[in-house]
């Protein structure tokens, strides 16, 4: 299956293949962005560039601007990003933090699954993701940092994406996802637990940042060593949540 081709074609061009057919979704009519009552439905073949150009999804601009390069953003798709191994898959990390669901179509009909299920188990034989759904976070509740070796066009050292709501001075809900912390996006549940019912201040966030490390299995690759990722994850976690 090929949508944008930004991961598959590199393999087709340079490696011996264990498949003999490619099915392209480029013209399957799976694009488009709809926002109704604060919920976004984004077609699977919507490109990252199209996502960045949509005024209603302006909260994702920092994600789009640090996502690969412009020439890749014009090809890479929202649906495709669900299947990209870390430290790629910046949008996938965001969708996990957003609690997004995937609409999946196959020979047995259509179904809905949490994106976390798609990360863990992929889709079944003959199925494709046709759209993702997520609630647009209220202003001031979305946090995103992507630490990179270069300022632009660079894979993540670590990524932190979070939807954190503060009510009456304390954190009432938190969904935090990490990139570079495993083969797939990781939910930082220990960090979330450390934030709940506490004020969103330096002291609390430092404790949560240390807890985030417990949820993470930092990757070791050409971009960054596991040691370095572990060393800087708590720092970027803190910077993401405190806006530093």
């Amino acid at each position, binding site marked *: 299956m*090929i949508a*944008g*081709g*930004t991961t598959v*074609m*590199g393999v*087709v*061009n*340079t490696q011996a293949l264990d498949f*003999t*057919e*490619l099915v*392209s979704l*480029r*013209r399957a009519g799976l694009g488009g962005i709809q926002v109704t009552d604060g919920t976004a439905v984004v077609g699977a073949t919507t490109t990252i*560039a199209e996502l960045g150009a949509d005024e209603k999804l302006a909260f994702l601009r920092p994600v789009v*601007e640090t996502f*690969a*390069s*412009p*020439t*890749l953003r*014009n*090809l890479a798709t929202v649906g495709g990003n669900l299947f990209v191994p870390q430290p790629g898959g910046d949008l996938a990390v965001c969708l996990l933090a957003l609690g997004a669901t995937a609409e999946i179509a196959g020979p047995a009909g259509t179904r809905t699954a949490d994106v976390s299920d798609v990360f863990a188990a992929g889709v079944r034989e003959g199925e494709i993701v046709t759209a993702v759904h997520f609630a647009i976070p209220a202003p001031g509740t979305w946090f995103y940092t992507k630490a990179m070796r270069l300022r*632009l*066009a660079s894979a993540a050292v670590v990524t932190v994406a979070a939807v954190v709501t503060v009510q009456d001075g304390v954190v009432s809900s938190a969904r935090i996802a990490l990139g570079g912390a495993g083969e797939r996006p990781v939910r930082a549940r220990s960090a979330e637990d450390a934030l709940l019912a506490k004020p969103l201040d330096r002291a609390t966030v430092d404790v949560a940042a240390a807890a985030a490390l417990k949820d993470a299995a930092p990757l070791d690759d050409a971009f960054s060593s596991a040691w370095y990722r572990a060393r800087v994850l708590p720092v970027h976690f803190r910077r993401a949540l405190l806006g530093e």
Partner: protein
Amino acid sequence: MAPRVVELVVNGRQRTFLVRPGTSLLMALRDTLGLTAAKRGCDVGSCGSCTVLLDGKPVMSCLVPVETVDGSAVRTLEGMTLEGGSLSDVQAAFLEGFATQCGFCTPGMIVAAEGLLAENPNPTRDDVVRAISGNVCRCTGYTSIIDAVLDAAARRRESAAAAPVAS
């Protein structure tokens, strides 16, 4: 699998040709159509030397299976030179600004620049940096390239201002 017929409008001309399945847009342009300005630097979308405009958008042509863009419009550097072979304003700016040394990244850089200027005739330095962020250069250190794109933008705005208004 059998070769397939693909039709593209390349630099304003209808082109019809056969490709083997899995052929990238890059290799169709280079091997089948003889348009060798776009380069094969990495074949995985990391270097940008293959950059072309696909339906007006700059893309890594090495990552596009050409069969999937049947019917699309493609512009390469060959289509950005002026009639009679004289250099475009962007090409002139690159040449005069010494923004090219080995020349391998240059077609990709110029195409990326043309893509930028089509959308934004008055880019900031940061706009230019972002527009070429997918294009690697090993020779120049990028500064001369960024300066050349800004120079080209200025030249283009000047000649647009000087041109008589069409009635």
